[in-house]
């Protein structure tokens, strides 16, 4: 049998393949050759074959038949064999295969080998893929190596020990004494650790230029970072430790050079540590200012990291972060999507009563120009902020209008009823609102939430619209017919969703009590009595009934018809069935006769004391019945006066 080909040759051959199929063929051929070679138990070529197998494994081809061969290589005496054998074990084996346990004995022997590199290989393998059984068996050997004077091995043993402890936490006790010694000084308990670490860190910073350990002029940055992280863990809930660290943290923060990335990594770690421990406020302000400086850095990675950290601290150190508000707002214009998102979240967190006008301007501008994935969150954020801090009702309505017109289709579904509620409560702005919404409808009827809110408003305040009563801005001249044209347009347009059509039909109906041209409305409503859409049909039929049976009440300019539309939506993921809505009003006997009106689906008693209603909801959700009782007292006065 000819000698198996070398790894380089295999690689070269495979690279000449022009198609996936060709490559597969070559690989299969070689696999067959390797398999026969394995069967012949040839020691000389085994490592070459396993190397080839690992290459093919990386390309995605099955290589499990090489697992046992790896074990044989590990057991060999030659360093070359062991090296590739251990690598193969780490790449091809894991603790889910029983085969791996066979390694335990080999590793045990190799941990005591005379050559440190073999010991190193064994430690590496154990530390990468050792299972809990293996770790239990070999923990003792690892612990021995922790105490060796050979620093190369000590480091590997330390990391291996970490893996062992992760797999078998009970063994931690065994490693504690050795770990303490690793810090090269005797210490008595944990609190001693902090001053010691502080001393080490100090030495690192003060030691000046030390060529072996430095990276770009900063002494051993990785060690500094590790120490800072350790300080963070130690000082997290400990006042004394935190106090001991304050000085050194301030020193690191001010002395570290930031012209290269390493300096920034250390500074960043320092900032994180300052934030996590119980540091004094001066130090915290220093940390936040460092983050603020990071925001101005050219390196986008630094900016990203700074924004992430600021987001975490904005709740606790609000004022300090406020100082960097303008920089944060500038980040909204960054090209990087991740940075923009962080900047947006942070901006919303920083909005307060003082800066609402300025911030909102920036955020609305951002809303205009941002990617669609941001628009929903941004719109919600704007609504929330506006609700909390709006300086005036007019401003509030304007802001809402702006959001609806620029990002109307991204606004969340539940905002529509919230907005309607808001508008209802701003009594003096009704005329202005309905006028602006009407104008917006004339421009664009594609954005559903906008259209829904607009239809509702027109239905409710259409009389103000045609009478031109707007005070805030120039009132527009619009006739009843024009308004009805628009609403009817919504009903027939392909752009309107079913829900939107429902809104506009109801609006048209409501206008029958506000407008004089009732006949047109009657006609529209009766047409939809035979609509294919069940929802529309039901509404139209009921409205028709109102026209027929209760027309005599129409004469009164303030009719006592209270049309209450209930919107119930299921926002859970499960289906809701058997939904029943019941309403009842208290009967009160009083001198003046009360008027009882049958309206749509429930009776409403209207009396001089105001409209009160008790409602009961029952439905079935996920198979179990749910019942909800409530009393509604806050009907707006116009509905019953």
């Amino acid at each position, binding site marked *: 049998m000819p000698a198996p080909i070398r*790894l380089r040759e295999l690689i070269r051959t495979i690279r000449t393949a022009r198609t996936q199929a060709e490559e597969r063929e070559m690989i299969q051929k070689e696999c067959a050759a390797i398999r026969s070679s394995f069967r012949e138990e040839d020691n000389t070529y085994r490592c*070459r074959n396993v190397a080839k197998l690992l290459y093919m494994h990386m390309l995605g081809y099955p290589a499990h038949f090489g697992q046992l061969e790896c074990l044989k290589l590990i057991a060999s005496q*030659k360093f070359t064999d062991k090296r590739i054998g251990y690598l193969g074990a780490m790449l091809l084996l894991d603790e889910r295969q029983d085969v791996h346990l066979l390694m335990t004995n080999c590793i045990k022997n190799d941990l005591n080998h005379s050559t440190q590199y073999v010991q190193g290989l064994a430690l590496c393998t154990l530390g990468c893929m050792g299972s809990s059984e293996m770790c239990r068996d070999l923990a003792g050997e690892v612990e021995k190596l922790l105490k060796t004077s050979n620093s190369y091995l000590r480091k590997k043993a330390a990391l291996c020990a970490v893996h062992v402890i992760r797999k078998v936490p009970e063994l931690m006790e065994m490693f504690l004494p050795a770990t303490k010694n690793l810090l090269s000084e005797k210490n008595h308990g944990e609190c001693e650790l902090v001053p010691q670490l502080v001393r080490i860190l100090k030495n690192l910073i003060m030691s000046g230029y030390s060529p072996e350990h430095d*990276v770009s002029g900063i002494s051993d940055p990785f060690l500094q970072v590790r120490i800072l992280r350790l300080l963070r863990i130690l000082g997290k809930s400990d006042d004394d430790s935190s106090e001991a660290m304050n000085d050194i943290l301030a020193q690191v923060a001010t002395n570290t050079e930031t012209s290269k*990335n390493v300096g920034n*990594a250390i500074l960043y770690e320092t900032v994180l540590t300052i934030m996590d421990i119980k540091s004094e406020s001066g130090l915290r302000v220093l940390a936040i200012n460092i983050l603020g400086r990071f925001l101005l850095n050219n390196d986008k990675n630094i900016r*990203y990291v700074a924004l992430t950290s600021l987001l975490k601290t904005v709740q606790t150190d609000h004022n300090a972060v406020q100082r960097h508000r303008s920089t944060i707002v500038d980040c909204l214009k960054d090209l990087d999507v991740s*940075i923009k998102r962080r900047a947006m979240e942070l901006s919303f967190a920083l909005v307060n009563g003082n800066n609402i006008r300025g911030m909102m301007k920036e955020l609305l501008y951002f809303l205009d120009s941002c990617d669609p994935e941001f628009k929903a969150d941004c719109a919600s954020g704007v609504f929330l902020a506006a609700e909390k801090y709006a300086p005036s009702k007019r401003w509030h309505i304007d802001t809402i209008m702006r959001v609806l017109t620029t990002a109307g289709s991204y606004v969340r579904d539940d905002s529509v009823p919230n907005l309607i509620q808001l508008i209802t409560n701003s009594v003096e702005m009704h005329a202005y609102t309905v006028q602006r919404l009407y104008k917006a409808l004339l421009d664009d009827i594609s954005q559903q939430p906008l259209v829904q809110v607009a239809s509702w408003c027109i239905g409710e305040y259409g009389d103000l619209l045609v009478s031109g009563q707007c005070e805030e801005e120039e009132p527009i001249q619009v006739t009843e017919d024009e308004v009805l044209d628009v609403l009817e347009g919504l009903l027939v347009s392909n752009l309107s969703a079913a829900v939107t059509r429902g809104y506009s039909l109801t609006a048209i109906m409501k206008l029958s009590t506000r407008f004089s041209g009732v006949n047109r409305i009657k006609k529209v409503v009766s047409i939809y009595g035979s609509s294919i859409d069940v929802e529309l049909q039901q509404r139209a039929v009921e409205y028709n009934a109102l026209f027929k049976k209760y027309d005599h009440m129409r004469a009164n300019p303030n009719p006592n018809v209270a049309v209450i539309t209930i919107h119930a939506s299921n926002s859970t993921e499960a289906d809701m069935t058997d939904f029943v809505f019941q309403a009842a009003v208290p009967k009160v006997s009083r001198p003046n006769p009360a008027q009882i009106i049958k309206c749509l689906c429930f009776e409403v008693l209207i009396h001089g004391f105001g409209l009160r209603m008790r409602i009961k909801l029952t439905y079935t959700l996920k198979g179990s019945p749910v019942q909800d009782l409530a009393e509604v007292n806050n009907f707006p006065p116009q509905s019953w006066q």
Partner: protein
Amino acid sequence: MIKAILIFNNHGKPRLIRFYQYFPHVFLQTEDMQQQIIRETFHLVSKRDDNVCNFLEGGSLIGGSDYKLIYRHYATLYFVFCVDSSESELGILDLIQVFVETLDKCFENVCELDLIFHMDKVHYILQEVVMGGMVLETNMNEIVAQVEVQNRLEKSEGGFSAAPARAVSAVKNMNLPEIPRNINIGDINIKVPSLSPF
């Protein structure tokens, strides 16, 4: 902790794959799964512009809320480290730089071809830098020294080929200066440029 280290080229071909953890929701981490993870990671990383930050949330296979992808793009190669939240992003960026500079020193102006033909050596170098998902050594000279001693140990045993002829091992010596480093073989003709200071 570092969960995985991946190196692949601009077309998504893997040049080095090293997993330090078996992702729990990946039931059978077979070769298929590994390739899928590579494809997904490549897909995520390759559509990133050059001027955006080097941090990404992981995909669905390699991901989970705790995992991040930190990557660096050098000429034709992507170096991707998948880490969890205990690692500092900036620190890992530095680590990638150290690893690449070490490769450069070991292979003398490393290029993609070196990684292709000496995959095992790259693994050995990586083993001196990262062990069990944790950073072992960051001093470049130290790493290079240890790797070289071990290589000499291998050479003295006759190396891979197992052919005892010394002439053969001499030819395998990578440090021959006459060998042009930017051989034009199809798409792989670009050297890793002198690494930018960081």
